[in-house]
């Protein structure tokens, strides 16, 4: 089924979007939320399990104190109020990936409430109010076997891997975010980006989106401009890349506008996001939603973090991304706009690591926002997903600085790095990309250029210095770009004007 879509510009002439995000983050604790099992990613299925995370009869949960600490630190970093008394609750529903028949979560007594996160888009700051931050356990993973798509439809049987079951999961829920207008998709993305930066700074999760460490449910609704009430929202589940967050909001805005334009009602439902097409499709409608029958988890005692501990954690918080950005901006001598470009490209960490690896801030920024951004865009991937490390980029910049390669050669060296041929220096070597020195070969090429273009040479001798460019071009052509243009120019001048 293909949805009718309205152009985004047109959507905004008639409707005002409200967005909201629920983000799940797998914590990087060594053991699971309620048992001692390892949380290492990628182990053989069902090897990291025990009676507790398999939900065997009689087994009981014991809270992982590290997970509570991480949750509180996230809350503090988001400016939340930390509850002095908080409880777990059972969320009851049947599904094979949930071994106990309920998920141990938090309901009306979350650990952290009422925070906020400021995000910047196009120089404008948007305050995202945080409703709550709570801790729960992850589910297992279903693997549907026998179908073409890996989805449950068409599969002939399913397998369940419980290695992930019980990994601590923090859920961060925003309040509805109104007033973002045309920038709604970018604000959604900027929020998740900023949140991810905070989580990385706190060191509470590896936040590998491709491994599902961070997954966002994206709520979108539209209301006619001027309307006092918000529209009916849809919830696009498990969107797991920054780019997808933005695309999901954009798609839903365009789809919902078409539904409303047709005089129909937006159905309150969960929707699935499809990476390949950037579209969403309908999932469960809320009308048939499960009643989760939440009630306080009787197998666990309430969490009552004392004030002293909270203050200790607050005092020990690391420099947060906003402060770090301000500091780096100053250290790097950038304007706010230049800094925003880096951040919006998701390149702050990459640039800063590249600087740390020895590149100048200007070079690091130029590479990541220029050539590398272009390559990522062409390949349809995130910058960080490019198969090149900040250290390699710094090495490349260093080769240019040292004059070993020029910009054009450096781009060719990058081709090699991205193709997996090794580090830049090794690629320069193996591909023979180094700039030619004042070698016999270059002298010959320079002489040949003068001989081959007597008119031009005469003009230069006659004082039309700018005509020398044509001769430089000729030399570069013969040397297939490997000569250093400045060197060539100097050599030509020596021969033609004696200077």
């Amino acid at each position, binding site marked *: 089924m293909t949805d009718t879509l309205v152009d985004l510009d047109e959507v905004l002439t008639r409707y005002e979007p409200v967005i909201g995000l629920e983000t799940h983050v797998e914590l990087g604790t060594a053991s699971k939320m309620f048992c001692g099992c390892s949380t290492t990613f990628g182990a053989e299925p069902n090897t990291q399990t025990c009676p507790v995370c398999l939900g065997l*009869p009689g087994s009981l949960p014991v809270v992982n104190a590290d997970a509570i600490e991480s949750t509180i630190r996230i809350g503090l970093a988001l400016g939340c109020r930390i509850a002095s008394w908080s409880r777990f609750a059972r969320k009851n529903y049947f599904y094979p990936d949930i071994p106990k028949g309920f998920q141990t979560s938090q309901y009306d007594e979350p650990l952290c409430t009422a925070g906020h996160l400021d995000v910047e888009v196009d120089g404008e700051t948007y305050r995202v109010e945080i409703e709550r931050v709570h801790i729960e356990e992850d589910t297992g993973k279903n693997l549907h076997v026998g179908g073409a798509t890996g989805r449950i439809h068409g599969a002939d049987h399913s397998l369940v891997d419980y290695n992930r079951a019980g990994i601590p999961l923090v859920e961060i829920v925003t309040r509805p975010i109104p007033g973002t207008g045309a920038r709604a998709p970018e604000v959604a993305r900027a929020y998740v980006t900023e949140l991810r930066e905070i989580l990385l700074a706190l060191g509470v999760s590896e936040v590998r989106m491709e491994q599902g460490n961070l997954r966002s449910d994206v709520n979108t609704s539209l209301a006619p401009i001027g309307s006092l009430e918000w529209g009916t929202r849809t919830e696009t589940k498990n969107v797991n890349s920054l780019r997808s967050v933005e695309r999901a909001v954009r798609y839903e805005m365009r789809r919902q506008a078409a539904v409303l334009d047709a005089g129909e009602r937006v159905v309150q439902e969960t929707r699935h996001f499809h990476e390949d097409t950037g579209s969403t499709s309908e999932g469960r409608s809320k009308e048939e939603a499960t009643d989760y029958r939440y009630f306080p988890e009787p197998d666990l005692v309430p969490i009552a973090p004392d004030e002293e501990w909270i203050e200790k954690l607050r005092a020990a918080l690391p420099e947060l991304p906003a402060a770090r950005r301000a500091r780096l901006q100053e250290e790097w001598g950038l304007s706010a706009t230049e800094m925003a470009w880096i951040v919006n490209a998701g390149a702050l960490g990459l640039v800063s690591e590249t600087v740390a690896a020895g590149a100048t801030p200007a070079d690091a920024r130029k590479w990541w926002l220029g050539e590398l951004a272009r390559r990522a865009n062409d390949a349809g991937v995130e910058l960080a997903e490019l198969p090149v490390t900040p250290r390699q980029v710094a090495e490349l910049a260093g080769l240019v600085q040292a004059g070993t390669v020029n910009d054009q050669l450096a781009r060719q060296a990058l081709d090699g790095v991205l193709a997996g041929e090794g580090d830049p220096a090794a690629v320069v070597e193996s591909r023979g990309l180094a700039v030619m020195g004042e070698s016999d070969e270059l002298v010959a090429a320079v002489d040949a250029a003068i001989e081959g273009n007597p008119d031009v040479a005469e003009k230069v001798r006659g004082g039309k210095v700018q005509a020398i460019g044509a001769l430089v071009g000729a030399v570069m052509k013969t040397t297939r770009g490997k000569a250093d243009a400045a060197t060539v120019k100097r050599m030509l001048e020596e021969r033609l004007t004696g200077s």
Partner: protein
Amino acid sequence: MSDVTATDITTTSAAALGEALRAGELSSVEVTRAYLDRIQAEDATIGAYLHVDAEAALRAAEQVDAARAKGEELGPLAGVPLALKDVVVTEGVPTTSGSKILEGWRPPYDATVAARLKAAGTVLLGKTNMDEFAMGSSTENSAYRVTRNPWDTDRIPGGSSGGSSAAVAAGLAPWAIGTDTGGSIRQPAAVTGLVGHKPTYGSVSRSGLIAFSSSLDQAGPMTRTVLDAALLHEAIGGHDPLDSTSIDAPVPVLAEAARRGAGGDLSGLRVGVVTELGGDGHTDGYEPGVLARVAEAVALLEGMGAEVRQVSCPAFDLALPAYYLIAPSEASSNLARFDGVRYGLRVGDDGSRDLDEVMALTREQGFGHEVKRRIILGTYALSSGYYDAYYGQAQKVRTLITRDFTSAWDDVDVLVSPTSPTVAWPIGARVDDPIAMYAADLCTLPASLAGIPAISVPCGLSEGLPVGFQIMAPALADDRCYRVAAALEAAQDAARGHALLDAIGGRA
């Protein structure tokens, strides 16, 4: 005890068996074999056990004997056999909780209670029958077999720990572990003439007890004597890091309290008789014989120096409805894991049905009537729109009951009542009347809801059947229960000339 016969072995207390084993007068193999022989002879009639592994039991007994022969330091329970209610998870030993849905399941781990008893050198005779998932007061809800009361085999042994009560009363085990959610240790102990103690909530680990109602479940001893109960309780009690609701306090000194109590001096002890549990104006449903025996027991306590007064606990009248909302609510969630996906029964997985159908069929065929009744009740009580009126309200009642106890402790040291309003009833008499069945728990529910300790100790016979006397104490004051129970036991045994249990089958 050099001339002990097999009958002596199976009618003596576990404490005495432990002494004889320590003194070298008996071997664990002899004791274990005596019980296995008796199980072989009698259990076809009694129906106490769901699983007996004679070979494994004898092997364990041999190991204890060998260790003792080598002069190893052994605990006081070493070599004494024991039965576990089938709700206790035992590594490699079938564990069903009385349900078809777990038929054939062999757990990969031991409950803390089982592990501690193993470490203490006790010998596991077998797993005892029970109402399915501990839901019931007669053991008739077992999916497997009928268990009969050794005092009258046409009558129920109580429940849900009816297999354990029948086994100990019939001499098929010297003692047993039961679990108590709303009275499931105390009521079966009462109707079979045993001592049964429900510890303070959180004082015995729940790790490895197949959960019925997590905020209420506690494991405890079911024994022939008060001292036995205290010894067994000491062996299983104490903090367990695997159970978050476990209280981090030292194991209480209980056997000492029992020994002191047996001395018979209760002077200064303030005893409150709970009006709402069979007192004036609250005698509906209570058998006169039960009330008479209880009154005699109170008089005995007074005779030993206790100050007795009436105490009113008005919220107790609401204990039954509150319990029958809270326990089923928790059960509806605790039993959700039995979905046929990972272990136990799976029905209908023939490729023609989808996941929901297989789960539904498994649960439909795997659970019995009473379990389904409570799952439905609990699901309803937790549903959005009903939660506040049912589960929420029941929690408030629970608070009121706890407050009644708290204010009672200002005036008295223990509260007493009948354990159950009636003696054992005929098998089948209440199976079609769940409300009548639930009424058997009337007196035991308040202590369960408040999480306080309560013991049932025999206080004589009514119409030839045992009557239980309940003693309740403040949280963590389990020793008081043992002290008062031991005093009562000693006074009655002295007056009677023998232990009540010796009267079973007209032996005394």
